């Protein structure tokens, strides 16, 4: 019987950016928090202007297909 998903150090899914439970945090190496910090810092950034043109290009192509 499966009791936990098959992943290391964390037995449940969690939304991006949320910290693991205190018990899990104690067993995780410190650099995992650092990885999350790097990841979350980028999540919080606005998309740079270069992505606007990408989105517009994709929208244009979508519109071109009618």
């Amino acid at each position: 019987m499966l009791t936990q998903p098959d992943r290391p150090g964390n037995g449940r899914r969690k939304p991006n950016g949320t910290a693991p439970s205190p018990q899990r945090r104690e067993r995780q190496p410190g650099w995992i928090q650092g990885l999350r910090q790097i990841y979350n810092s980028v999540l919080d950034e606005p998309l740079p202007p270069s992505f606007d043109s990408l989105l517009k290009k994709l929208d244009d192509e979508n519109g071109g297909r009618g």
Partner: protein
Amino acid sequence: MALLPQLRAFARSLCGNATLADDLVQEAAIRAWSARATFVPGSSMKAWTFTILRNAFLSNLRKDRRQTAPSHDAMRDWTPAEQEDGLHIADLERALGRLGPERRAALLLVTIGDFSYAEAAQICDCPIGTLRSRISRARRDLGKMLDHPKPVD
């Protein structure tokens, strides 16, 4: 396109360089758009796009070794930063860059990408056992680099 922030964050951790990461994400987005007919409805869009991103990353690495060419021995020539107050993000980024790209991608998919081993193995196109091995070695190497004591004078 709602996944763009997550793709950017993953790419940033993979590449260690904001410009390269954004270029990679844009390339992956265009590839995904071009291949949208191959997406299986009901399957994970996130996993599908992360697969494309990972493949683009490795493809670019093969074409351009200047991006990063870590040795198989991540510890070789590793110089820990002198610091008294614990882990610095810069050290972590340096250490990540020392990992082999396959191991780095595997580790990031599971630890911060919120994928299960099964999903990550599919993204990496490898057996779960191989993925586990990559993650285990990545964790070991990161632990060694980031827990490495300062050199004794």
